């Protein structure tokens, strides 16, 4: 309920000028005078947050670019010397097999996670669209997997997916679906599937919540009209739900990609990037290079790749969300 009103108010914000209709003159006068006198005072409200964001986002972005041209090793880090080496880090990192492998894994992980989260999240949202006894309680309980620390979820799943002693394989054996069990964490392709499944599990609640909110904003009279025209559930989804939900869908997908690309916790906890590097993504490689092998220069190269990727999607996100709000 709450979110519906939020969406509505957000949208109405674009028509805020409407409130100025009857007191526009006063408004303009009142605003002009203080601005001259209090310009600085006004900015003081923003300065602390602005300074913080510059220090903790602006500086790291610049610093990462600088670091990517420097050579850090275990030795030089201790002595504090990190000589400039030009593009050497880039050529080494980007030409390595491990890089192309990490890119592929990142793409598979992201696409797999997003598809699963979205489809299942949408199915859940459609299911909850019609109220039934306990639907509210069930809907909020559903949020739990999303709220748990990722380390907690990862640890639990790792325990459940243990090929020899885990409950998942025990169930598969019990149901005679697999006699030997699936090597969830020890097969190279299975391990990737495992981390994708876990990430889907984590992401379903978020997708359900947002899509559910989007569904609530579709006026019910449109469904009634569609019904009068003889549309079944499939037709009304195709011609009413989907078109009206599209703006929200694009926001969900873009946000999902941006968040999934940088996932580290789950992979580090569940597989540690293994076996044989099969679940190594750009983000986990960046972490390993910087903080395990102490090659901060090369780690920074991968971090920059992540930034470019994320910012490209951020731009998409901005475009998508602007569309979402102006529809």
């Amino acid at each position, binding site marked *: 309920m709450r979110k519906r*009103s939020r969406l509505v*108010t957000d949208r109405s914000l674009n028509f805020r000028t409407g409130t100025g209709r009857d007191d526009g003159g006063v408004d303009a006068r009142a605003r002009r005078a203080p601005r001259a006198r209090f310009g600085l005072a006004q900015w003081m409200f923003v300065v602390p947050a602005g300074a913080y964001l510059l220090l903790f986002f602006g500086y790291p972005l610049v610093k990462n670019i600088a670091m990517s041209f420097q050579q850090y090793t*275990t*030795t030089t*880090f*201790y*002595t504090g010397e990190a000589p400039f080496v030009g593009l050497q880090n880039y050529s080494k990192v980007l030409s390595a097999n491990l890089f192309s492998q990490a890119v592929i894994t990142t793409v598979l992980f992201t696409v797999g996670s997003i598809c699963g989260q979205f489809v299942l999240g949408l199915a859940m949202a459609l299911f909850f669209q019609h109220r039934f006894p306990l639907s509210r309680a069930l809907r909020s309980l559903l949020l739990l997997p999303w709220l748990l620390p990722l380390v907690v979820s990862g640890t639990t799943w790792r325990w459940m997916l*243990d*090929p*020899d002693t885990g409950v998942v394989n025990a169930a598969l054996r019990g149901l005679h679906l697999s006699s030997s069990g699936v*090597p969830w*964490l*020890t*097969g*190279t392709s299975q391990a990737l599937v495992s981390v994708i499944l876990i990430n889907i599990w984590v992401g379903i609640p978020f997708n359900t919540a947002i899509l559910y909110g989007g569904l609530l904003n579709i006026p019910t009279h449109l469904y009634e009209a569609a019904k009068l025209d003889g549309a079944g559930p499939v037709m009304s989804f195709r011609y009413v739900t989907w078109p009206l939900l599209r703006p929200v869908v694009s926001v969900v997908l873009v946000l999902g990609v941006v968040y999934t690309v940088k996932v580290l916790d789950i992979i580090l906890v569940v597989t*540690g*990037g*293994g*076996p*044989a*590097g*099969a679940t190594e993504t750009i983000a986990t490689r960046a972490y390993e290079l910087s*903080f*395990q092998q*102490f090659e901060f220069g090369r780690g920074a190269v991968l971090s920059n790749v992540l930034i470019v990727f994320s910012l490209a999607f951020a731009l998409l996100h901005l475009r998508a969300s602007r569309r979402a709000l102006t529809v």
Partner: protein
Amino acid sequence: MISPAGRPVRRIAARLAGAMALVLATTGCVGGAGTGSATGKVTSITVLDYYTQRSEHTQWNEVLTACGKTAGVTVEHTSVPPASLIPRVLRQASSRTLPDLLMLDNADLQQIAQTGALTPLDQYGIDTNGFAEGILSAGTYEGKVYGLAPYVSTVALFYSKDMLAEAGVAVPRTWDELKEAAAGLTRQGRYGMAVDASATFESSWQFLPFLWSNGGHEKRLDTPQAAQALQLWVDLVKNGSMSKSVLNWTQADVHDQFAAGRTAMMINGPWRIAALNNDRNMNWGVAPVPVPRVGQVPVTPLGGEVWTVPQSSSKDRQKKAAEVLACLNSAPNTLTLAEQHFTVPSRTAVAARYAEQDPTMAVFVKSVEGARVRTGELGVRWPKAATGIYTAIQSALTGEQTPEEALRHAQEIATSD
């Protein structure tokens, strides 16, 4: 939509204020990693090692506390998992937050000493005479001794006597016998054999006896000898006598599997014996690591952790840490520690007496005498080779690459910069 809600906000404000106060109060201990002031008397030192296993941690804690007492300090003892020790040490080195007394696997010493993070022990007047040559060379970098180990060890084959008897299998001495025995011992819910094949230095260490006994060498990994050794591990997994989970098992996990009766044989070190002896149901035996052909003597790596005194701002703290280090490596303590961990004292005179006193330990004393130092050939480049080895193990055991391909790649890693 908009409703005046003064009360909740005041409550929030009060809570925030409370939180702030709490934060301010607790940050009083910021950077309090045992930074006793340089001038004041040192009353405690920090110690870092990788003895996370409960009984091992307790035993070390007792010895450290006792040695601390003689040096007049209390000891803050922390243990982290083996695989995370080196990354942690590197970060501590770069941020100058190293502990006062640091334990390192002897194969990692030279790499860490090279960074300049450690202090040579001669400046504390510690006498390094009387230590066995192998472990002393592992603790030496550019002519100076940086680390001393109270005891040394190596790996061996552990087996369950009951399971072998029940399956009618003899203790395997060669690779072929090992494969046969492992297959014969495999049952529903139990594997015949277990090794550490994780993506850590521990698996490289466990692989060395197979590599070396077959004539392979860490300097040149893409050889047929190396490929044959790796093929043995691959075969054990392929025919189901070794769990594929070995890819994720550390030596501690391998031990847990063995203790739980989920594997009949394992490669591990004698420092596990104490824990095995605690388990009354366990009827275990130990034998040399199987060799390629009958009659060969296995070549195993020299194990043992060296204790070091890292650089720190306070000379006094370094001095106290060195006193504790000297105490750990004193003749009586090397004997006590070796007895506790079923390992061999690193002082040759003590080891000789030890072998006389306890004939069962004579086997271990002998095996350690022939053990090779991992950094003996490669020095500071050993960690690169070790990375190449475990990468190859992972690629081959998952079936991503053949042993030959995997080892070619390993050689690239070992020689990269």
